[in-house]
């Protein structure tokens, strides 16, 4: 079924491409550049960049944006703010990009926003920065409405993590969080959510990455003898931590945030220890376009999109390109930003997240309509601060990778979050 949809979709895309061939002769003549500043020198950063490039390729296949082919100029941030800011500045000044995708770490995205994109009126669309500082900055009016992110604020995942603990009947939970902006945020939020559900938090321990051993931290977390363990960690240190946790006799009842949704983590820890592990993530969507995304991605990259931030990166790129299409040729940053609402309009015509969907969106936008982008992370909708809320899923590890356990709709997420506040 899925395959047939994909093929039909591709055929439709191809047809749309051919019908617009009259204009497509034009399309080959011009190129519009967009910028991307992503940590490609880091293992988990490469797939995020590859996914963004993949979205660009699909759009080009559908005839490009506003009659022009899109070229994504990719720069490495090296997770170093200086380097990332310089790369962003070069993209804006030398390549004249009006849309910048990136960065991943909030510590890099933030100085790019304050010193490059906001002053130069360039739209910045981050796949993965989760810090609450962006919301605060936007409320102060300093982002000029140019900053968007497809990564739901950590609140959603923290809430779903607490919900899992409640549904599983855990009475006490220890928390291990990565000691960066994302981890500190989510660690604090999940602790508050658990407390308001009446679940005891026996300890909350920060994990600094790059350590040879995490014995001290793990021992600290074991102290309260918790029913379950909550982890907001990345695969590398997550693997080391879980190995020590299990070998020191910790429970196998674990709740993990989406950053551990990785085959590398599953393989290195061993599936036999992860049977009781429940993961959380913002939504894997219920639309056909989403399964089409997974199928297309699997075909393209020889594996399903299992790494952190991949669907977010895909949606960030697609939404940015849709907004560019809506704004027309040679649009300025603020004009493009203004169109984001028009392509993620809940009242608009639903379009799928593939080449055919993009081609369809082009027609609707050309005739003055608005569209609802149904993305790889669900029906993305930004609030006034450029933040997204999202439906959520819980998932578990399987022999093949991971599988969804339960789908929690946006309404349920919102209601639950309101109830624990």
């Amino acid at each position, binding site marked *: 079924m899925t395959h047939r949809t994909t093929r039909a979709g591709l055929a439709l895309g191809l047809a749309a491409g051919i019908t617009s061939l009259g204009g497509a002769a034009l399309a080959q003549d011009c190129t519009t550049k967009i910028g991307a500043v992503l940590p*490609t*020198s880091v293992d988990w950063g490469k797939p995020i960049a590859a996914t963004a490039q993949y979205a660009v390729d699909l759009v080009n296949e559908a005839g490009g944006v506003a009659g022009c082919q899109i070229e994504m100029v*990719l*720069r490495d941030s090296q997770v170093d703010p200086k380097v990332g800011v*310089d790369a962003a500045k070069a993209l804006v000044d030398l390549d004249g990009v009006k849309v910048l995708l990136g960065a991943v770490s909030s510590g*890099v995205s*933030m100085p790019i926003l304050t010193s490059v994109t906001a002053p*130069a009126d360039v739209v910045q669309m981050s796949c993965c920065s989760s810090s*609450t500082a962006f919301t605060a900055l936007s409320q102060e009016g300093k982002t000029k409405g140019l900053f968007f992110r497809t990564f739901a604020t950590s609140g959603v995942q923290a809430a779903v993590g607490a919900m899992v603990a409640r549904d599983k009947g855990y009475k006490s939970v220890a928390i291990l969080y990565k000691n960066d*902006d994302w981890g500190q945020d989510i660690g604090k939020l999940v602790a508050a959510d658990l407390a308001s559900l009446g679940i005891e938090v026996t300890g909350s321990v920060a994990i600094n990455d790059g350590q040879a051993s995490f014995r001290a931290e793990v021992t600290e977390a074991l102290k309260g003898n918790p029913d379950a363990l909550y982890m907001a960690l990345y695969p590398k240190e997550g693997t080391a931590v879980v190995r020590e946790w299990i070998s020191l006799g910790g429970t196998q009842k674990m709740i993990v945030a989406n950053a551990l949704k990785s085959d590398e983590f599953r393989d290195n820890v061993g599936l036999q220890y992860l049977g009781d592990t429940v993961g959380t993530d913002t939504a894997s969507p219920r639309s056909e376009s989403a399964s089409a995304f997974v199928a297309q991605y699997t075909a393209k990259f020889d594996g399903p999109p299992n790494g952190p931030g991949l669907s977010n990166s895909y949606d960030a790129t697609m939404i940015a390109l849709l907004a560019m299409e809506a704004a027309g040729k040679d649009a300025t940053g603020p004009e493009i930003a203004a169109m984001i609402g028009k392509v993620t309009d809940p009242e608009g015509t639903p379009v799928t997240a593939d080449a055919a969907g993009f081609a369809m969106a082009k027609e609707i936008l050309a005739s003055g309509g608005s569209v609802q982008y149904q993305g790889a992370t669900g029906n993305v909708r930004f609030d006034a601060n450029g933040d997204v809320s999202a439906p959520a899923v819980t998932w578990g590890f399987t022999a093949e990778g991971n599988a969804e356990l339960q789908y929690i709709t946006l309404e349920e997420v919102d209601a639950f979050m309101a109830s624990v506040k």
Partner: protein
Amino acid sequence: MIGIISYLVFFATVAGILSIAVLGLNLQWGNTGLFNGGVVAFFGAGAYGTLILGGTAQADHLGGFELPYLLALLGGMVIAGLMAWLVGVLTLRLRHDYLAIATFGVAVAFENLMRNAEGLAGGAKGLRGFERPLRAWLGDGFSYNLLFLAFVLVLLIATYLFLETLIRSPFGRLLRAIREDETAAQSLGKSPSRVRLISFITGSVIMGLAGGLYATFYAFISPQDVLPILTFQIWAMLIVGGAGNNRGAIAGAFLIWGAWTASGWALSRFAPLDVQLYTGSIQFILIGFVIVGMLLWRPQGLFPERLVVSQSRRTKDVSQSGRRKT
């Protein structure tokens, strides 16, 4: 065209700021022989100090003193100096590699403190809420960047002139005397430990100035800005430029930072599409090659120290025998 100028202004500002930090290190290492492996701690102290003193009030961390900008910058330098004094009193009896390890530890401790002390410095999410000076008047476009570049260059030149005067003065000769042979200097009635401390603090204050300017430019600082990689970058700049030569220090900063950014730009532009994803890693290899090649073929740097005759033949074996004595 305007884009190129705008980018070059931006580039020169960052390179100028880094040059100031390299000058600070040159006083410590090039002129006094102090192996400071924790440059980033003093750079960070200036940066955090400036933003905390000059920023607007924030709900979740210290700050909101809203001092006039120059006072805040000066405050950042004073904080860097105080930290250098504390660190210096504790560690300056150590020599060479031991001092390097101790100061490296200080830098790691500093980064961890900033990452965890949320009430003090905003924790991992960093420190915001700083209004760049004169922004209301100039906006934050090109003209602002141009003015800020001028400000940085004035401070860079002032630092350069100050250091040139310093090392040409009798005090400068004393620094070199201590670097070359501490016992001999002591036998002449000088107090090496005091002089080393003064040099260490002065160099650190200069690094603090660079940090303050850096934080001002981005209006933001987070623990990610004060990782050990910055210490490494600043050292690479000094080694390539030429330790002991202030002009070399500045040239090294511009060259290394230029190579760092230009290699990324060139790879993104000219590398074939299928290796685009690996440009980040390729860039690291290229930069490593430049530094290793420099150390192999021109260890004295592009602009070697200009020594007076009495020292010129001895520098090499002195630095070796100095190590043996520790």
